[in-house]
Structures are given as structure tokens and as C-alpha cells.
């Protein structure tokens, strides 16, 4: 739980940025400005030059690192059951991600021989790393008997159970591999998944299943101001932020040692019925969330980070925060202390098939047991007031291995002899 005391109001943005590094997100080149003494207008290093390390020990980047402005998510289906093909793909992906997170091309964009077809497509040349992180996840089928990798399966990996109110569409759900590419420049994020999809085709190991572009991060990392979702509400006020919370709720620390520092990734495409929402009275909107729209304060408080008082009653003896308000049903106080890291993005796909705005929240959560997400969503899906205004249409569960040390690749221990 996050109280008023750890509210980041007093920190400068630089302080926040370096604070994030201390949290566990490795930042390789933090502050050029600090070295030269030159002070940028917002006392930040050039955002285009912000970069995170791909190689290392511990978790992959893109989970505890502060959410960037843009997301490009992509899921893939394996084309066969040859573990060698998957091994080649993961090794080539890793080597390429390592370069792209450094702001480097994956090869010559214009090879010396003009009859060559270049792997590097070139659209991100000169844009810098832009804080790119690409996080690789493995779906349940990777660990199937047919792949010969069942013995290496993470203990809690399996498809998500059916949840109340699910309206899932198979073509935007599931998948055997996931990529979460985040950057402060959408072109950098798009370039990354485009290259990685190209490598998948080249190796023949996997084909693209679904993809999602996200904008305007919809949750905060440590020290970031809480952003708003497309319903206009601050999203992620009570998110996981401290290393202790990450250790307790996010990182895997049981099972085989090589899996430690991994985590389970849930991706959900949540469509918002924007037009209906916009026509709802603001008092009703506040009741749905259990918060005030403008300040983000709970209905029982004054400020965003005030702890909600779920016992408070109004003059009529009704709970001030309604029984089925989103904030109440999702609170760790009412869920046996369960907490998950939320790292979502807003999305839009233009208009849907019936002429309404196609928009919503691309929800991404990380937790050390997918049952934790299921427990929360089972309650929300059953009775959340918000359900009138949303539909869960896409869903995926992936295990995210820990980072790779230099000279190796994501998931390498999978292919070591048992």
C-alpha cells in the first residue's frame, strides 16, 4: 500500500529517473547532462538517448523499469515442434534486441551488395534508443511434450482459466511467444517488433498471431505521475513500486534456480464502451471507480494517495465507496493481500464494426503466480460496476524468463541437457 508519505512530490524529475535505476531497472547511460554540466530545460537527459541494458542478471527490462510512453505488443504462434527452431529464434531475437536497445541497427540498412535484401529496415535510424525495452515471454505450448521441453516448465504456467464476463476472441488471444516493446518514440517500438517478426519469418519458427499498438502509458512506475485511462481516471495509484513489493509479488523466487527473477505476464485487451461512458453522469462515473475523476482521491478522501476507507458510511447508512466499486473489489485489503504489477497502455483501433469508437485499455500485469490475476479478475468480472462499460476481448498468459547474461540469450537454460 502506498500512503501519503511515499508520494513523490518533492523529487525532481532527474531524481525520479535515477531513483528508478536504483529500483532494479538498469539504466546504462543515465545522464549525459550531468557529465557535461549542461542543464537541459527539464533537467533530463535527451529522451531519445535514454537507454536500458538488455543483458544482465536478474529480471528482464520492461517490467520494473519505468513505463515508457508507447507500446507495441505482438504475440506469435510456433509453426512446429522442433525445439532447435525455437532456440535459434530466441538467440537471434536476443542478439537483435540487445542491439536495438542500444540504439544500434541490426545490420547494414544498405548492404554493399545492392542485390542483397537487408534485414535492417532502417526506419529507426537516427532516432536513438528512445528508452526501448523489449520483453520476451513464452506461452504454455512452448513447454508441451511435443516440444520436448515439458520438464523445463515453470510451475505455474498454464492457460488462464475462464473468467466471468470474458468475451474473448481467439484471433486476438493466446499465442506461444509474446513481445512487449515499449519506447518513448512509437517508431522505435514499432521498428523493434517489425524486425523481430521478420526474423521469426526468416527462421520459419513462428508466425505473427496478433498485435497491439498502445499509447499514453496507463499506469505509473516508481516516481512517475499517475496517468489517466481513456475514461479520464487516474490508473494505477496503488501500483507496486518498491523493491520489496516486487520481491514479494512479482519476481519468481521458487522452482528451479534459473527461473528466479522470471515472472508471469498477463495481457488483456479491454475494450471500453466509450460513448456509453461519456453519457454517464459524473457522480455515477465516480461511484463506478470509487474515486473522484479530477483529483483521483478515493470518495472517502481528499488526495490521490489517501488510503480508501471502505467502512465509511454516508448519511443514509450506505457505504461511501459502493460495494461494487472498482477500487474496492480490486484492493489488496479485500483480496487476502494479493497485489499485481499493472503496466498497461491505452489503445485505439479507429472505429469498430458497428461504427463506435474502438478503444480501451491494453492491460498488462506481472505477478509471480497467474492465480493472483485470476483471483482479482474473478471478483471484478463477476460484479465490478465497470463491467457495464468494458469487455475483455483478448487474453494471453506468458512466462517471462529472467534476463540473459552477455554471450547468451533469453531462455538458454531451456535448451541445456536435463
Amino acid at each position: 500500500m502506498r500512503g501519503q508519505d511515499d508520494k513523490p512530490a518533492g523529487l525532481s524529475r532527474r531524481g525520479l529517473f535515477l531513483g528508478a535505476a536504483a529500483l532494479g531497472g538498469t539504466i546504462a547511460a543515465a545522464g549525459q547532462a550531468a557529465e557535461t554540466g549542461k542543464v537541459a530545460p527539464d533537467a533530463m537527459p535527451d529522451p531519445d538517448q535514454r537507454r536500458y541494458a538488455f543483458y544482465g542478471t536478474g529480471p528482464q527490462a520492461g517490467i520494473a523499469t519505468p513505463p515508457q510512453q508507447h507500446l507495441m505488443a505482438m504475440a506469435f504462434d510456433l509453426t512446429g515442434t522442433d525445439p532447435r527452431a525455437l532456440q535459434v529464434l530466441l538467440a537471434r531475437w536476443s542478439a537483435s534486441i540487445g542491439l536495438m536497445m542500444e540504439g544500434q541497427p541490426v545490420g547494414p540498412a544498405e548492404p554493399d551488395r545492392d542485390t542483397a535484401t537487408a534485414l535492417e529496415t532502417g526506419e529507426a535510424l537516427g532516432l536513438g534508443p528512445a528508452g526501448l525495452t523489449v520483453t520476451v515471454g513464452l506461452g504454455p505450448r512452448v513447454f508441451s511434450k511435443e516440444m520436448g521441453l515439458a520438464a523445463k516448465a515453470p510451475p505455474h504456467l498454464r492457460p488462464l482459466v475462464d473468467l466471468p464476463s470474458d468475451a474473448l476472441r481467439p484471433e486476438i488471444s493466446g499465442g506461444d511467444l509474446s513481445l512487449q516493446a515499449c519506447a518513448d518514440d512509437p517508431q522505435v517500438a514499432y521498428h523493434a517488433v517489425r524486425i523481430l517478426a521478420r526474423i521469426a519469418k526468416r527462421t520459419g519458427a513462428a508466425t505473427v498471431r496478433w498485435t497491439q499498438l498502445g499509447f499514453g502509458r496507463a499506469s505509473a512506475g516508481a516516481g512517475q505521475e499517475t496517468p489517466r485511462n481513456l475514461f479520464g481516471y487516474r490508473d494505477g495509484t496503488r501500483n507496486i513500486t518498491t523493491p520489496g513489493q516486487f520481491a514479494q509479488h512479482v519476481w519468481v523466487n521458487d522452482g528451479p534456480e534459473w527461473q528466479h527473477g522470471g515472472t508471469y505476464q498477463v495481457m488483456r485487451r479491454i475494450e471500453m464502451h466509450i460513448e456509453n461512458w461519456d453519457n454517464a453522469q459524473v457522480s455515477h462515473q465516480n461511484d463506478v471507480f470509487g474515486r473522484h475523476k479530477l483529483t483521483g482521491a478515493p470518495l472517502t478522501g481528499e488526495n490521490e494517495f489517501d488510503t480508501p476507507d471502505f467502512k465509511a458510511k454516508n448519511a443514509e447508512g450506505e457505504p461511501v465507496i459502493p460495494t461494487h466499486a472498482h477500487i474496492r473489489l480490486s484492493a489488496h485489503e479485500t483480496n487476502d493481500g494479493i497485489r499485481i504489477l499493472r503496466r498497461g497502455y491505452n489503445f485505439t483501433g479507429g472505429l469498430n464494426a458497428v461504427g463506435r469508437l474502438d478503444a480501451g485499455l491494453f492491460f498488462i500485469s506481472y505477478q509471480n503466480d497467474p492465480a493472483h490475476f485470476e483471483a482479482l479478475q474473478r471478483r471484478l468480472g463477476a460484479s465490478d460496476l465497470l463491467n457495464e462499460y468494458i469487455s475483455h476481448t483478448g487474453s494471453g498468459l506468458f512466462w517471462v524468463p529472467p534476463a540473459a547474461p552477455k554471450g547468451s540469450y533469453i531462455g538458454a537454460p531451456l535448451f541445456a541437457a536435463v
Partner: protein
Amino acid sequence: MNMSSRARRRAIPLLAASAFFAQPALADAPTNNGAAQVAITLTGDNGGACVLDHDSAAAGPITFTVTNESAPAISELELLSDSRILGEKENLAPGLPASSFTVTLDGGDYRIYCPGAAEDTVAFTVTGESKQRAQSAIGDLLDEGTAGYANYVEGMVGAMVTASERLAAKVDEGDVEGAKAAYAQARPFYERIEPDVEGFVLPGTDPTDNSGNLDYLIDMRASNLDPAVGWHGFHAVERDLFESGEITDETKAYAAELVKNVKMLADLSGGIEYRPEDLANGAAALLEEVQSGKISGEEEAYSHIDLVDFAANIEGAHQAFAFLEPGLKRIDPDVAETIAQRFADVQTMLEDYRDPDALGGYKIYDAELRKSDAVKLSRAIQMLQEPLSRIAEKVATAS
């Protein structure tokens, strides 16, 4: 290769790497298992480097064993003689086991090309003479392939003349159902060879004027209709047969003009000589046709026999590949096998769409089938396009 691309071409510096790799002369690589053994290590040092443990070997079989130790930017390596690719390894990445290839080389100067390395070219010398002349064998195989392919194209053009005449005859009889069947039978011939025969401009007309563009006159679609030139060719007949279901005097005129133009195409295309890269580029262009015209259902907007065209595009691409395959197997057996397998995958997939009762033998590609299956069809083609797009260079530089 045309002149403009030749002019843009930059020479690969022959000995660009000599300063960086200057080191005490090493002895010829040692021989083991009947082949000289050369180890190549890719490292991330100095911006990426490609390091050989021996920079020379005696003529004969030579095995190159490649390990990517720590070079994320280098994922492939080629052995070059002038600009010919004699051997290569792909999918190299740090952490993967070493992989090797063996080639038989004559005495001479060679280069190891490692795109992505700071110094991307390393000299390699072969001393003495080998008994086997591997390269001319590859060139001969490719030449046989292009000659065989030229016969194939000629056969298709001849069959198209006959099929168009049959279509025109049915139209003249006013037999709508017979004409529809004849239309479906005539279409595949053009779709198998389109990239080879689409470039002809009638004498005396401006290349930008569609009234002189034989491909336009034979195969224009509703989606690329030039109002100044109007309806012509196969799809004009298709529209009348399948949209209104009526044969008019105008329909008969379209069919007669189609026969005239197909015969002209047969005259113009006879005796074309192909280079190996023409076959590779043609095959790639046919797959692009599948993606842009057939999967979208744009090609056969009235008859919906797009899957008939789809199968013909694939067959044509497969033929072009098959004529290159014996040479390509010598140049790069891995890629030859990959492409052969992916063609087989696509052809297996197409079996599910066969329908002996439908026009042309494949299911009608209506809005419903497009909605349910377009993504699957597109993905299968993409998996084939990616490796196929790279063989033009391999065969162009080998012969």
C-alpha cells in the same frame, strides 16, 4: 541487373581488413577428416569482428566452423570469390552452438564477408590447385535451369492462346455457362507466368500510356481501371459474364480483342532469354501478386475464382524455383531445402480448398471465406516470401 543499379553498386573493398587483421603469417589450416579446418569466431570487440584462426589453406575441401561468441550484430557470414557466394551460414547468434560448412576451393584469393562487423571483409587465401571445379558446375546447372524455364514459359503462352480462343468461341455462341467455365480454365496460364510477360509496350506508344500496355489490355482489373483507356481483356469479359450474366456485342468484342492481344504477346515473348535472377525475382513477384491481389479478393472481383489464380501463382513460382533448385542446392543447400519445404506446406494447405465442382477446381473465394481464411493464407505466403526473397542474390552472384 539494370544499369542504374549497377551504377549504384559499391565495390566491396578487397583487402579492407588487412590492416586490422595484420598478424604474423599463419601456416595453412591443418587437415582433419579429409578437409582443411578453419575456425571463425565472431566477437563484439572493436565494433564487431570476424576472426579467422588461419587465413590460408591448401586447395581442396575446406571446412569453416563458425562460432558467434559475442557479436549480436553479426548473424550471417559468407565465403566470397569476387562477388560470388560460395558458402554461407545464417542464424548465427551468441550462445548458439558452432555451425560449419564445407566447400571445395581452387587456389586463389577469397574473402570472408561478415555483414555487421566493423571490418566486414577478411581475406582468405587458397594455395595450390584443386581437382574439382565446383563453380562452373553451379553455373552449368543454373544455365540448364534458365533454358528449361524458358521452355515452360513458352508452353504456358501457347496454352493461353488456345484457352483464350476457346473462351472467345463460347462467348460468340452466347453460351454463358460454357464461357464461365472457359474463363476459369484460361486464367491460370497468365497467372503462372505474369512477371515474365507483363513488360511489353506496343510499338509507337508512350510507356505511360495504358492503351499501348499489353499487360493492361489483357489483365487490367476494376481496381486499376484507367478511365481514359476503359475496359479490356480478361476482366472485361469476367465482368459481363459474372455480374450481369449477359453476353452482349460488347462482350464479344472484348473476347475477340483478348485473343488478338494474347497472340501478340505470344509473338513478342518468344525467345526471351532468362538469367537465373530473373527466375528468382519472377517467383518473388508472383508471391507478391498473391498477397496484393488474390488474398484481398481484388483480382477476380466478379467471378471470385481468386483461389484458382492463387494456386496458379504458386505453381508458377514453384516452377521458377524448381528450375533453379539443382544449382541452388550446390550454393546453399539449407535455403534450398527450406524453400522446397515451405512450397510443400503451401501446396498442402491449398489441398483443403480444392473443390472439383467449383469453377477452376477451387472453392469460390467469397466474402465469408475471405473473412475466415485470409489471414491464414497470407501468413503461409509470408513464410515462403522471406527466404525466397533472398535467392536472387545467391544465384545472381554464383553464375
